[in-house]
Every structure is written in structure tokens, then in C-alpha cells.
């Protein structure tokens, strides 16, 4: 027996002894978990056999706090749910209250909400693309995406004074009108942003490493996607053409022309590609909103102490991460009796144990990244 063969023999014997599966903790402190999430992963060699997520490290009783605050007072708390798309959280909550109380908001506020909401979607997808690139080792992309996101944050800072937790929307409209010349700034941003998307493609879509890394990984079948009630790019990545902006329009989304990009295989690539194309569609919506936006007030005349009539409502919007729903039970007082947030990433993350088994542990990072989790929203 040659030395090499002898060595191989030893290796085989040794691995035969230790072939049992192993539980590995990924997180709570791990750069690719995008927050504080712990994944308990059962490994067979390099292959993931089972995955159990543990969360709640950032649980802060959002719903309990909501039960003890007046309807208006909850708005700043909603910012802290999905801090990468605060405007959309504001919108979802305000819309639920408006539907519950039967408040009609002014036309200009509707347009500004769509405009700001879509800019927020672009910003949120940019940060997703950047950090997802970082997960896969694409650092340049991260810098580029953050450069453009910074511009959107500047725009939001100009309207609300904040860069992350805006609290800009109110029950009945918006806190303020946009400053003079702001719509021109948005136009200028779009002029800058549109040629950037093909530039990202050079780093991502056309990049052979990027393709090899995420194609055919983390497949979620349409059946599983529906059973686990996935929404947003997760659901569309699995090939189901479902977007609340089109299928259950809220606000004035029925007035805009845009497409719903869908994937075909339901892998990480499709989820990436759906988000990448959604940025283009958001640009289209913002452009239409810019040309049609009417002058006028931005806040409906609403009472200072808002009371909702007895009843309950489940109201949902299409946030950048999926279906963001608010279930509010009102007992006629100025506080909600029960306030539950159906966080899109909480539900999307529940499909992770279905997506991971069978793939390599290195792919787990890509699959987890493709869910686009925000742990503050998962834990509430």
C-alpha cells in the first residue's frame, strides 16, 4: 500500500467514526443573519438536514404597547417594526385606522403616499441588494447600493426631518406637505438612478460567479409558498403573480400602470431578479405620480381624539417585504382593544425550514439573505 493510499484509508476510518450528524448554531451574533436570529442547523457533512429558527431576541411587546396607546400615538412605534421601510409601516397602520374609522384622505396625500412608498420600496430593495451582495462577497455592490439609498434618505430627510424612523404619515393623510422644489429633486434622483440599474447588472445579473452562486439554490415550490402564506418577492419568485397593489388595490394604486415581475423556479435567483425588476417598476410608478400629482391639502380634517367604532379589521398592504397586515380590534374607546401586526418577514421566515434542507451550509447564507428578513419586524 502506498503512503497516499494508507493516508486515505486512515481518513476514511476516521470519518466513518464521526459520520453522525451535528447540530450547529448560526447566530445569534452572526453577520449574515441581518440582526439577532439564531438558526439551529443540523449538518450532515456540509449538507443542511434540518433547520430550527429561534427568534424573539428583540421582542419588545409592540402589540402590548399598542393596546395601551391612543391610535395616533402608535404611529412612531410602527416605524420601529421594519426600520428599512418605515414609511410603509406608517402607511399600513394609518390605512388600517382610516378604513376602520371611515376616513377619506385628500387626493394630494394619496399621491404623495404612493410616491414616498415607492421611493421607500426602492431604498429597501437597494439595502437588500447591497447586504445580499455582501453576504455573497460582492462588496462593490454594497457601496453602490448604499450610495443611491443615501440619496433617497436625503429626500426623506427633507420631508420628515428623519433619516430612518420617519413617523411621517398620519391617520387622515400626511404630517406635512413636501417642501418647495422637492418633486424636482425626486425627478433629478430618478434621472441619476435609472442608468445605475444596468450598472448593478454588470456586477450581479451578468456576473458568472453571482449566477452560479444563487441559481438553483433554496427552491420554494408554489405549493409551499401558498401553504406558508409567503408574500411579496418570495411568493412572486415562486411564480405566483400576486401583488396587493394590483390584486387588492389600496390607496390609488389602481390608477398606475406597472407590471408584476415573477420568477419561474422559485430559487434565490428568482427572488433576486424579482426585486431587481421591481425597482424598475417602482421608478415607473414614481414617474407617473410625479406628472399627475395635484395641489391641495395633505391632511383630512380629523378629530384630535380619534375613536374607532366597535368592530375589527384586517387591513393589508404590499410592503417591500410582502403582505404587511394590521389586525385591529376596536372597542369604541380611543385605544385599540387588540392590535396585531402580521409582519411579512415573520411569515416568510417560517418557510425557511422548508427551503434549507438539502443544500450546503454555504448556501444557507444565500437562502437566508434572499428572504430579506428584518428581525425587528419578526420579533416585534
Amino acid at each position, binding site marked *: 500500500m502506498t503512503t497516499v493510499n494508507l493516508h486515505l484509508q486512515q481518513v476514511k476510518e476516521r470519518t466513518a467514526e464521526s459520520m453522525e450528524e451535528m447540530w450547529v448554531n448560526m447566530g445569534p451574533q452572526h453577520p449574515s443573519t441581518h440582526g439577532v436570529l439564531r438558526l439551529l442547523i443540523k449538518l450532515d457533512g456540509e449538507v443542511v438536514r434540518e433547520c430550527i429558527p429561534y427568534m424573539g431576541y428583540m421582542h419588545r411587546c409592540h402589540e402590548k404597547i399598542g*393596546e395601551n396607546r391612543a391610535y395616533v400615538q402608535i404611529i412612531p412605534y410602527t416605524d420601529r417594526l421594519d426600520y428599512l421601510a418605515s414609511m410603509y409601516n406608517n402607511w399600513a397602520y394609518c390605512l388600517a385606522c382610516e378604513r376602520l374609522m371611515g376616513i377619506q384622505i385628500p387626493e394630494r396625500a394619496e399621491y404623495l403616499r404612493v410616491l414616498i412608498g415607492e421611493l421607500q420600496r426602492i431604498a429597501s430593495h437597494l439595502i437588500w441588494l447591497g447586504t445580499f451582495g455582501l453576504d455573497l462577497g460582492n462588496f462593490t455592490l454594497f457601496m453602490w447600493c448604499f450610495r443611491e439609498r443615501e440619496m433617497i434618505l436625503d429626500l426623506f430627510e427633507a420631508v420628515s426631518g428623519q433619516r430612518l424612523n420617519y413617523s411621517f404619515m398620519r391617520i387622515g393623510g400626511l404630517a406635512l406637505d413636501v417642501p418647495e422644489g422637492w418633486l424636482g429633486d425626486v425627478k433629478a434622483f430618478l434621472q441619476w438612478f435609472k442608468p445605475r440599474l444596468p450598472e448593478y447588472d454588470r456586477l450581479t445579473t451578468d456576473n458568472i460567479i453571482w449566477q452560479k452562486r444563487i441559481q438553483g439554490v433554496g427552491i420554494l415550490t408554489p405549493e409551499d409558498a401558498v*401553504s406558508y*402564506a409567503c408574500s411579496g418577492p418570495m411568493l412572486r419568485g415562486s411564480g405566483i403573480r400576486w401583488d396587493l397593489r394590483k390584486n387588492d388595490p389600496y390607496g390609488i394604486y389602481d390608477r398606475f400602470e406597472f407590471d408584476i415581475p415573477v420568477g419561474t423556479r422559485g430559487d434565490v435567483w428568482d427572488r433576486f431578479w424579482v426585486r431587481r425588476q421591481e425597482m424598475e417598476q417602482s421608478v415607473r410608478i414614481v414617474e407617473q405620480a410625479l406628472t399627475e400629482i395635484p395641489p391641495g391639502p395633505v391632511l383630512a380634517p380629523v378629530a384630535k381624539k380619534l375613536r374607532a367604532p366597535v368592530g375589527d379589521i384586517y387591513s393589508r398592504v404590499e410592503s417591500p417585504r410582502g403582505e404587511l397586515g394590521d*389586525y385591529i380590534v376596536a372597542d369604541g374607546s380611543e385605544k385599540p*382593544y*387588540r392590535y396585531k401586526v402580521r409582519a411579512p418577514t415573520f411569515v416568510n421566515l*417560517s*418557510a425557511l425550514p422548508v427551503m434549507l434542507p438539502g443544500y450546503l451550509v454555504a448556501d444557507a447564507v444565500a437562502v437566508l439573505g434572499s428572504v430579506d428578513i428584518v428581525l425587528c419586524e419578526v420579533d416585534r
Partner: protein
Amino acid sequence: MTAEEILQQIRARFGSEIRTSEVRRGEASVTITGDRNLEICRFIKEELGFEYLNCLSGVDWIGENEMEVAYAISSLRQPGKIILRARIPRNEPVLSSVVPLWGTANWHEREAFDLLGIRFENHPDLRRILLPEDWIGHPLRRDYQDERFVPYPWDDRKPGSVVRPTTA
């Protein structure tokens, strides 16, 4: 299928279980007594074709000494929404799990168990999800008390509390 038709079908099938049923904002809104929630959910999913469970939330109706689990159900193939509320006694809050119908119910039910103490029979893995495993009590119950849970001193809705100072 309009909301009224949905209600008629549910009424025809489960008339004795239904406490209230009405059309609210174009949505079917049904309250049932808890025992047969799994059957009604299966009927809604398989025969009415509402295959998407949007949300599941527990509510503590302490005044009526009852717990409630509200299912918001819709479909990706047809318009229409159903809100189904299952009422159960508060001192024995047990319901059948709907995980066999919808995978998403798994975490939602764990959350309702964690925060409200509602138990779901035949749930595959019923344990706390957001709070630590050794936590005592269920915070979203209306009578939950915790010495760390201090109301804001300026909460003027509570009798005997301090009014918020307006100057520094």
C-alpha cells in the same frame, strides 16, 4: 363568490355553530363557538377555495370570560376575504390546530400560545416563540401583571396618575 354567498354556504353547513355572521366592508365576518374550528377551516379552504391564511391572532375578551382566535383567510385565485373568529372559554382555552391545512399557522399558533396562552391541539411543536422558554405568564392577556411593566407617569387616562409636565 360574494361575501353574502360565502356566508350562506357556511350557514347552511355549520348553522348550529355560528353565533354571528354578517357582511362587513364587503368581507364575510363570522363568529363561531370553538369546537369545530378545524372542520370549518377545512370547509373554507377545500370547498370554498380560500387557500391562503393571511393572519391568525388571538384576542382576550376578559369581560366576557372568553378567548378568541381570529383567522383572516383569503385566496390568491378569487377576490373576497373571510374573518373567522372562534370563541373558546377563557379558563380552558383549547382549540384544534389548523397546521394540517396551512403551514403558516405553525408560527402564528405558537405566537398565540406564547403571548395569550391559547393551546392548540395536535400542533406539531407548540412552544414559546418570541419570549424566553422559562417566561412565566402570557403578556397579551388583559390581566397580565409584571412588576417591570410600569405605565408612563403622564398617562392621564389612569386615575390618580401624574399629569405630564409641560415645561422642563
